[in-house]
Structure formats: C-alpha cells, structure tokens
C-alpha cells in the first residue's frame, strides 16, 4: 500500500502588522503544486524567507493554506491532510530531545504514548540501528550534537511513520557529522519505506535526495529526479566505510 501527499494550487499569504495603521499582505508562494510519495526522498532548498518551512507545514497538514487544497492519498482513497497526523514524524535542527529523559527513553517516548508494551525493546533496537547502544542511559546533555540527532532520527522513525519531515537536520552539525547523519537518515527512511521531506540550505544534503526542489520568489522548481539509491550514487566510498552502521537500517 503506497501513500502520497498532494498539494494543488496552494498559496500561502500572511498579514504583516508593521504598525496599527499600516498592514500589508506578504505572499510567500502562489498556485503551487507538489506531490510527495511514500518511500521517496525530497529536498526543498531555497533562500531564507522563501517559505520552505511553511511549505513543510502545509505538506504535514499542520497548517492550512491560504488557498488551494492539500490531500492525503492512501491506497487510492483520498482524504484531507488531517488524516495524515498519526502517520508523520519530525526531525529538527535543534534535535529537541527531552532533557530529563535518557537516550533510550527519548526514543521510546512515541511508542509509550501509543501504549506499545514493547516500547523499550523497540527503542533498544533503534538505538542499536543508529549506533548508540552504549549510550542508552545517557541524558541529552551528555551526548554530542551528532549523537543527539541520531537519537532524534531513531525517535522519529521508531513508530514507523509513513512520512518524515526534517527541517535542516544537519544545520547544527559539522561536515563530518552532517554527512554521517544524512546517510543514516536517508538509509533509515528507505529501509522503513518512509517518505522523507527535507528542508535545507545544504546542497550536499539536498543532493542525496531523489527529488530536489528549489523554492525562490514564490516559485517551486524541480531541479533533479533520481531513481537510484542516492548514497550509492554519490558517495560509494562512504557507504563502504559506513556499511556496518548504515546498512542495518
């Protein structure tokens, strides 16, 4: 069963209240069409303020467009994006792990909320997948940025969502860590057959996606379509090195 998200002729505007008397309307984008499918990866690039994050919010159904329509197609059954809520996960630039919880408990969190009795077992499995088995009891403050993001990736995927939305997931990491995290993220999403939608400025990260879009001046342009494994295509050496970690996803 494959799912997809479709945005049709969506526009996003907001009112700018510069002062009580002067209000103006700013148009982020107009009449934009976009379709994302489960199992595929997408990167949305573009300058700051272009509306990338807003587009991400529209795709995830967390915000409504000013005009146009968004729909969730699940096995040919079309419904509103509200039905997508329980099928999505997020990964943030600031990781946003809960500081009081250990790495293991942070990962187990969404499962526990869903009443999964196997939460801890599954979380341990995911911790192993992202290569942090030995850090299970560590609190976020005791982990490096890269390690925190690995925990965040595991947490986002542990409940098997159909789509993962990532907002600058490597924005806070150095190049080496950024590459590692990107590889893990793409590999894990692929292994779980989750659609991955990344918003980023980082062209290296964007290039790993199967589909790359550029959002600038209110227009969305598709710049690349790739059907083969981006990791194998772009960084064969890296894959060899990281096989032990990544292939497990």
């Amino acid at each position, binding site marked *: 069963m494959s799912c997809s998200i479709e945005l049709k002729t969506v526009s996003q505007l907001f009112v700018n209240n510069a002062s009580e008397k002067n209000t103006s309307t700013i148009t982020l984008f107009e009449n934009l069409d976009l379709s994302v499918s489960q199992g595929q990866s997408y990167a949305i690039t573009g300058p700051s303020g272009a509306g990338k994050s807003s587009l991400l919010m529209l795709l995830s159904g967390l915000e409504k467009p000013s005009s146009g329509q968004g729909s969730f197609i699940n096995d040919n059954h079309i419904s509103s994006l509200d039905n997508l*809520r329980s099928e999505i996960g997020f990964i943030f630039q600031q990781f*946003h792990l809960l500081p009081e919880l250990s790495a293991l408990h942070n990962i187990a969190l969404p499962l526990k909320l869903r009443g999964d009795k196997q939460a801890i077992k599954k979380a341990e499995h995911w911790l192993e997948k992202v290569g942090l088995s030995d850090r299970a009891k560590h609190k976020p403050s005791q982990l490096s940025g890269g390690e925190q993001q690995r925990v965040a990736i595991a947490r986002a995927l542990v409940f098997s969502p159909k789509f993962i939305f990532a907002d600058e997931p490597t924005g806070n990491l150095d190049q080496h860590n950024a590459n590692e995290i990107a590889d893990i993220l793409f590999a894990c999403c692929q292994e779980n057959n989750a659609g991955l939608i990344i918003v980023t400025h980082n062209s290296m990260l964007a290039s790993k996606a199967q589909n790359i879009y550029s959002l600038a001046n209110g227009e969305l342009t598709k710049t690349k379509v790739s059907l083969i494994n981006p990791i194998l295509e772009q960084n064969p050496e890296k894959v060899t090195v990281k096989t032990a970690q990544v292939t497990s996803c």
Partner: protein
Amino acid sequence: MLMHHMQLAWHCTQQEYRQPHQRLLRWVQATLMVFIVTLTLSSNTIQDYLQGNLQNLLGADAVVTQKDKLTSKQLKALARFSENVVNTLQIDATLTFNDEWQRSKLKAVGSDYPLQGQLLTATSPGSPTTATNGGPTAGNIWLDSRLISSLTLSIGDVINIGEQAFIVSRLLVHEPDRLMEGHNVSMRAMINIDDMERLAFPTDLIQHRYLVSASKSQVQQIIEWQQEQLPAAQIHHKQGAHPLALFWQRTENFLGLASIILFFMAAIAIEQIAQVHLKKEQYFSAVCMSLGVSKATGLQLSVFKWLINILMLIPVVAILSGIFHWLVVGWLSETFSEISWQLDIGLMAKTIATCVLLFAVFHSPVWLTLCKTSVAKLFHQNQKSISLGLLKICALVVLVLVAVMYSDNGLLTSMLVGSIAITIMLMVAISWTVLTLGEKATQQFSGLIPFTLFMMKQRLLSKSTQILGIGLSTFLLLFTLMLLKDLGDTMAKYQRTHDGNVMISQASQSQMKAINEWSAEHDISVRQTKPYLYAKVVKINDQTLSEFTNKPSESLTTLSKSIRLHWSKDIPNTNRLVQGEWWQEKPKNWQQISLEEEVMTDLGLSLTDKLTFIIHQQSVTFTITASHVYKPGAGSITFWVQMPQEAIQHINAPQYNMASLELKDDQWPLLSQLWKNHPTIRMISLQELTKQFDDILGMITKVISGFAVMIVLLAIIVILSAINALESKEKKKNSVIMSFGFLKTTCLQLNIIEWLITAFIIATGAIAGTYITGMLIYQSQFSLPYQPNLYILLITLAIILSTVTLLGVYASRHSLKSSVKQLMAEI
C-alpha cells in the same frame, strides 16, 4: 555612565514589564508588603492605644479591685502608702423604664471622685461636655447616651431601681477610670455612693475599687501588700501590663504565626519565579558580555532593574496599606473604643524598607549567579547552574530571620517550622512512592495514564520542585483554614451552651426564691436550676499562678478571676466522668474537686494535683480527684469545677444559682416586673445571646475571610509561579508530542492526568501535614483538642484535587499553545 546604565535599566524594565514572571513577582511582593505593612501599622496602633489607655484611663496610679469591701484595718494599711484613696462601687444591674429594660454597669461614686483625670458630663445629647468634680448627688442618676436612647429616656425623667427613684439629671460622657472595663462595651450608669448603700444590693455582688495616687515606690509597696494580705484582689498600676495585654499577646501570637505562613508562601512563590528570572538575567548578562561589556555592568543593570520594579510598587503598597489600616482601625473601634486612625509614615517606611531588604535577599542568588556568568553560557545552554541550592539556602535563611522577627513565641515558631519540614519530607516521600510504584504497576499497561506516570517519574526532580511549592502552599492554606474553623467552632461551642429562651446566670438564694414564685404565678417553666458559689484560684500545687506558668492560657485567665464552683452528690446528667472517681469514698474528705478535661489538659494538670481557691475571703485547698466533660442532650448548664455536696457545709459563702426559663411570646413583658424588683438578677434572653454569639462569630468570620483571601491569593500566585517556572519545558514537551503525530487534545488529556496525579500527591501530603501540625500545635498553643473530622478531610481532599487540577490545567493553557512550527523556529 551610571546615568546611561539607569536609562538602559529603565528601558529594559519597560520591555519586561508585561512578562508573566515579572507580573507574578510584582503580585507576590505587593501582596506581602501590603499585608505586612497593614499588620505592622495596625499592631502599632493597638499597642499605642493600650499604652495610652493605661496611662490616661487608669484614673489613678494604682487600682485595687475586689469583691468585698476593705475592712477598716485594711483601709488603714492602704492609707499608709497613700494619702489619696478614692472608693468606687460597681454592680451589674438591669434598669427598667416603662416596659423597656437594659443591662448596665451601675457605678457609685462620692464627691472625691475622680482621683485623676476628668469626669465629663453633658446636659443633653449633643451639648458641650463639662468637667465635673464629684459624681451625682443623692437621688440623681447619670446615664450614658446609649442607655438613654435604649430606654427611650429624656433628661429629667424618673426611673426606679428597686424601691428607689432616681432623676436622670445628666448625660455621662467620660469616666477617667474606664480602663478597668477593658474591652467591655456595657452601657454605663452612675449614682451617688450613699444611694448604693440605700439600694441594699447583696454585698457580695458589688465590686469595690480603690483608686490610689502613689509614687512608683509606693505602688511597689502596695503590690507587695496586696499579694500578702489580699491575694484575692486584683491590682492594676501604671507600671504594669494593660488588662488586655494577655488578650493582645494571644492575638499577636496568632498574627505572628499568620505572618510566618504568608512569608513562607511568598518565599515559595519568589523561589519559583527566580528560576525563570535567573535564566533570563543570565542570558541577558552573557549577551552583554559578548558585546564587550564588563560583568559588573551586567550586574549593575540587573540591580537597577530590580530596584526600579520595587520603587514602582512602593506608592501602590503605601496607598493600599493606608486604606487597609484605616479599615482595620474602623473595625477595631468596635472592640477598642476611642481608638483612632493615624498614619505613621516613619513606621510604614521602615516596614517597607525591611520588606525590600528581605526581597533583596530572596533575589540575591540571581545576582550571585550573574557574578559567575560568562559568555560561555551562550554556548552551553545545558550548563548546570550552581545557584539552585544557593537559592534554597538563601530563602531558608530569610525565612528563619522572618520567623525570629515576627514571632514572640519560639515554641510555636519551631513547631510550625518543624511541621513544614516534616511536610516537605512527607511530600518528597509520597511523590517518590506514588510515581515509582505507579510507573512500575502500570508498566504492563498501555494508555495515557501509564505514560503520564512514566514521564512524571522521569522528570521527578523538576516535578518535585513544583509539587513541593504547591504542596506547601496547600498545606499552609489548609492548616490555617482548619485552625480558624476550629477556633470558630470552639467559640460556638462555648457560646451555644444554654437551653430555654432565658438564661439566668446569677441569682442569689432570695432572688431564686422570687423567680420560682414569679414563675409559678405566671405559669412559666423553670427548666434547670444549679447552685454555685464564686471561687478564685490563687495557687496551683502551692505555686502562685505567675509562678506556675507564664504561657497565655484562656483557662488560667478565667480561673484567676472568679469562677462558678458547683457542688453535686452524683455526676450531673450534663457531664460524663473521664477519669478519677466521683467522689472518693472518704466521708471526711470534702476537699476534692472534679475539673473539666479541657482545663486539665490546657494547664497540664493531673489527678492528685492541688488547687487553692479563695472563697469569700477563705482559702480552701482542693485535690483533683476526677475529671469530667460536657455531655450533650440533658440541658446545657455545665461547670468547669465541681465539688462534693458535703463541701458546702464547710464553706461559708453566698450561694447563687444558674437557671434557664422558657417564656412564651406574651410573657416577655413580665420580665420587666421581675427586674424592677430585683435589678441585680443576671438574666439574658436568647435573642441577646444569639446577638452576642453572632457578633463574635461575625468578628471571627471577618478575620477568617480576610486572612483566607490573603492565603488563597498567595496560593494562586505560587501555583502560577510553579507553572511559569516549568512552562518552557512543558511547551517543548507538548510540541515534541505533537511532532509524533498526536493532536492537541492528547496533550490536554496528558495535562489533565498529570495535574490530577500532582493534585493527589499534594492533597495527601497537605492533609497528612495538617494532621501532624494539628497534633503538635493545637493542644500546646491554642488549648484545643485536635480531633480531625474524616468527613471534612475527605471533602477537603476532593476540593484540593479539583481546585489544583482546574487551576493547573487553566494556568498551563499557554503551554498547550505550542506547535511543531515553534520547534522548527528555534535555531
């Protein structure tokens, strides 16, 4: 440069003015300052009043009061210490005019009255007052304006007391020796001393007062003489304590306790707010330092901002405290006549300054942390702060200082502080147990409750700070309300102890005979009759009362005045024996008594202890052989002290009776006839009794309401502060949960469950703490037996659960306004 910094601080203060933590801080500081300033001003007004009262209203340098007339030998002895001795007589009498009656204090004075000060009278209500030397001449009576209006009399009218007729010739405005009446608000009447003799009232009902002018050393000699020769007499002098001093000391003890409780609550609120404040100030200071500004400047700005905030509060506090003080004085004037409102600006400034200083200490951890802050703070968001422990130590030091400053009762303070410490430990234990066991027990189950328990357990440290903050406030609120309620109930219990609709509290044997005849004649039913005689305790176990204890005690104060000593062969049907024997089978041992259990406990007495009474100038020592309590259902007249019937044969003293009557509606006018012939019968109707009770209850209700409002206000601030302190964490948690694909409804459900669990822990801890505190404090400090009512406790539990949950959920609504987008926006 300083000017620039001040301008910058002013600008920052304006920017931060509407932030929730600043708003909460202002509320807590203003509330506490208004309370403390009002309390200090009111307390000072009363102290001044009592002092002035003692100096100006004694009407003499010393006053000796006793039931019997001094013998000529005793008078001679008194005259040795002073040349000027003025005798006045006073009796409680009911004055009648047409069909109206009114109880009043009838005072008899001679031409040598007053000794000191001015006797003021007027010719009619509203006319100018004149100072008068000497009291009314024979056949004249002067009445105060209330008595004149209550009997609808006019100057020139003639009223009868017993067989004597008196012309109402002047209006009595002021007696210089009114202090002796304490806070008595009885209506006043004055006659000539010779008329009193003609009225031939029973001599034992007349109170004799001897006003003496004497130097300090002479006063001392009189005191020594009185202790040796007239142990049953009372002496008041200018160097001594005001008759209301004991009453006021008890009040101050209670207010001291209230202040400590409020300071604790304020400290909790400020401590919670400081957690948010600390982070913001540290961040601001680190940003300033990253821009090349010195650490000292950052600190300076923080101090200026704090000062500006406090300075802005002071005018509001001053105005509000002034208004509240005025209201309190207005209210107190019902009890302390002639008390007047005067604003002591100096005292107000001093109190505000002390409060500001205390707040500065509360705030000092923030400044201390700023001294240790560095730009590195900006890079390490999770940097552990050393100041949290410091915060708590500072708060504790200030609270101890406040406790020492505001309490004159070390034992009470340490008991309260001890109870708070026990409650803290209890709440920590309950939190840990509930969350650990709850989490373990629900591990195998799925759903929101197990998840909430899991999350709370994981966040035990931060959550327990919140639980402790709110829990302590709830405990203090609960304890105070329980205490006030129990005090009110006790008052009610003392007051509502009469049957019938007319209560006779004192009738001599001849008067009782007349009452019986009058009742029989008019078919009025006499419900109960119980004989007694007056006795005054002078020694306990051969120690004088002052040697025995210096702790304020209601029982001791009452015993040291004249109490009613009842005798009976068998246990009265209004009493139940709780210990000892009624009576020991020794026919010759008539010197045994049974003492009411509460009095025994209050004074720490036990069986075989000895009490020495003065009964009609005789000293009699009794051994406590039994203890009794009141048993409802068989009438309501009961006595604290009772002795065997045989004892009465050995004691030569006037005997009186207590009785209750039931009058039909049309029989009420008949009372004036009885009073006209026997003006000294002490009778009170149910209406008057109810009014007295309602007045007292009204006073207590006002105190309870006023104080409860303060505590509830502070408790709400504490809850809001505790929520504010964790708001950012909560917000983030909710956003993260939503990022897992959950709706806001789930967050709300989790929030409600979390607050229910929190409220359960808080309620259990607060109730347990209140119980322990009750056990510790009630008996030892307020002479109240602590008997918690399970039903009330359960209702309280339900109220706390629902209130804390509702308030918690309502106040957390900001944290529910979170979204995934906000997490994205955080860079």
